[in-house]
């Protein structure tokens, strides 16, 4: 528990496994740092998705998390661990935006789908790239980020974001009725335990659609004071509204 994500000015040799000195552009980050950074990225994406419950999400929190995601993506781009096949863009700015929306577009399922190959043992950077290029460009053009900020935006804007939300709610519906806490309680919470990630123990929960959900709900165990309601009946209500049949 005490590891800090720090971007040092110099890249140290990885003599200390716990040390997290990242590199500047051009240098390869150490595998453990990449893993942790990827964990942070995944955790952040989950947080962004799960704040769409019954009460309007906290905009400040969402903005801060999205900025963190952007920072990670920028660093990964500089490291060269992030290669994006983005459609031809006019200038630098639109490309950046496409890249950032691409991250947010990627549903967790697509992330999970790419993971099993790379997850066993060391770094997962090789597995990362094919996953990215698999994202359909149609999704990349939409901006689920705006749907995070403006809940009253038209339904179409939700795009790829909506897809992953559907997955969440589909799976929730298929579970036996009970409180949401029950839903989260039997989940393997080791996924987001950084120690477990470092030792490569995480791997069993990554395959398929349903367990992909379980992996990221581990983080979602509602902290005290969160706005997630425990009544599954109200979640059904929310599903109806959001899916809008």
């Amino acid at each position, binding site marked *: *528990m*005490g*590891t*800090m*994500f*720090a*971007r040092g*000015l110099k890249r140290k040799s990885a003599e200390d496994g716990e040390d997290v000195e990242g590199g500047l552009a051009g240098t390869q980050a150490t595998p453990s740092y990449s893993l*942790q*950074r990827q964990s*942070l990225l995944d*955790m952040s994406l989950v*947080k962004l998705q799960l704040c769409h419950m*019954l*009460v*309007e999400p*906290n*905009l*400040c*929190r969402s*903005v*801060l998390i*999205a*900025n*963190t995601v952007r*920072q*990670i993506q920028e660093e990964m781009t500089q490291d060269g661990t992030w290669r994006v096949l983005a459609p031809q863009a006019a200038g630098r700015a639109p490309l950046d*935006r496409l890249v950032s*929306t691409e991250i947010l577009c990627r549903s967790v399922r697509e992330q999970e789908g790419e993971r099993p190959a790379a997850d066993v043992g060391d770094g997962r950077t090789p597995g990362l790239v094919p996953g990215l290029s698999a994202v359909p460009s149609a999704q990349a053009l939409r*901006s689920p*980020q*705006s749907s995070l*900020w*403006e*809940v*009253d*935006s038209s339904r179409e804007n939700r795009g790829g974001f909506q897809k992953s939300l559907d997955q969440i709610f589909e799976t929730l519906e298929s579970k036996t009725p009970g409180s949401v806490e029950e839903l989260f309680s039997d989940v393997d919470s080791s996924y*987001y335990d*950084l120690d477990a990630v470092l030792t490569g123990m995480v791997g069993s929960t990554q395959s398929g659609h349903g367990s992909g959900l379980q992996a990221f709900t581990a*983080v979602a165990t509602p*902290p*005290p*004071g*969160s706005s997630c309601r425990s009544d599954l009946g109200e979640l059904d209500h*929310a599903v109806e*509204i*959001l899916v809008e049949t």
Partner: protein
Amino acid sequence: MERELETRLRAWMEGRAESRWLEKCQWELAEPHPETTQLESVRADIISTVEFNHTGELLATGDKGGRVVIFQREPESKNAPHSQGEYDVYSTFQSHEPEFDYLKSLEIEEKINKIKWLPQQNAAHSLLSTNDKTIKLWKITERDKRPEGYNLKDEEGKLKDLSTVTSLQVPVLKPMDLMVEVSPRRVFANGHTYHINSISVNSDCETYMSADDLRINLWHLAITDRSFNIVDIKPANMEDLTEVITASEFHPHHCNLFVYSSSKGSLRLCDMRAAALCDKHSKLFEEPEDPSNRSFFSEIISSVSDVKFSHSGRYMLTRDYLTVKVWDLNMEARPIETYQVHDYLRSKLCSLYENDCIFDKFECAWNGSDSVIMTGAYNNFFRMFDRNTKRDVTLEASRESSKPRAVLKPRRVCVGGKRRRDDISVDSLDFTKKILHTAWHPAENIIAIAATNNLYIFQDKVNSEMH
């Protein structure tokens, strides 16, 4: 005059043999007078805001259930010297109810985000209370007399049989048990698309402002169907949104000046005389980032959760996740003072991000003379920093170790290394026990601390006068 006072006080303090004001302070839990109605210090709901009025006689608290409870300080009585100035419940009312926004299919929480008192202009007290979307003006009046001896009605209010009325009498006012009546005078609705985080009454006593994540509106206290938008940071394309407004306040003396803070750690001082839309700040206060401390969490921990002008109007106090900072209005480049609240959390930021604690919004407070600042932390700890002596103290708001009249003893968090007997280690801190809301009496050393469902009022009996 203020400067003279300040210099004199400082000289006096420095001249003392041991100017250890904070250490000499003895904070006691203020228990209610045994004969008055019980102090409802434990609530069904989490307390979400605490605010003294301008004299300190009244203390208003709001909670997550939309209720407001006002406490009043009992006047000192010679008959019961123990109960000098204790606070008792004065009034309780339901300010906001939960609502449903049908357009967005979302609930609007009834939680009271902020309460601000209006300066008292007559016998009645008034306050503004707000939830995420709607601000309400409440008037609090007392009734302690009632008329008796009506000609046409009897004591129960029923009409008299006119044949029994043989003479006329003048109704007289007879004393009755004190009744506190609260009525909603204004409802300022539909002014905000995003969630209101602050309200602030202007020194002109006629206007006030309300700020949400992206906009700040100026209202007239008497007009509810109109407000002026004075700050708008919503980008044309919401995808470009990277910064939100986190807090705002009017200057205590200059009715044209106000400040607002952002999630990127900057403060903007604006002058309403400069333009109708104050998007261009008059002054931008921002501290350059420390490159050696850079991490993915740097921006999040730099987000300002609260900003407060000093009573003098010369300084501003800001709170971000790990520090409190004092800014001089004349210096934009950096704060003049920085105090570490709980720097031992710096190595735990990843875990605190994971459990969302990193997004907790702590408030901060000045004492009446602007010499001491206070803010809350975790494990029901709160911290005070003496700006003159540079000493600080950590205290805990809990009933366990405090009997009535018992004095709070300072606490310490140890970060490994030598551990003293009563120290708490960082890893055993309870992050669910957070003190987000604190308030300091405007003139005396009385503080109100909200610890989840509990309200604590501490008084310094030794040094009741402000230093």
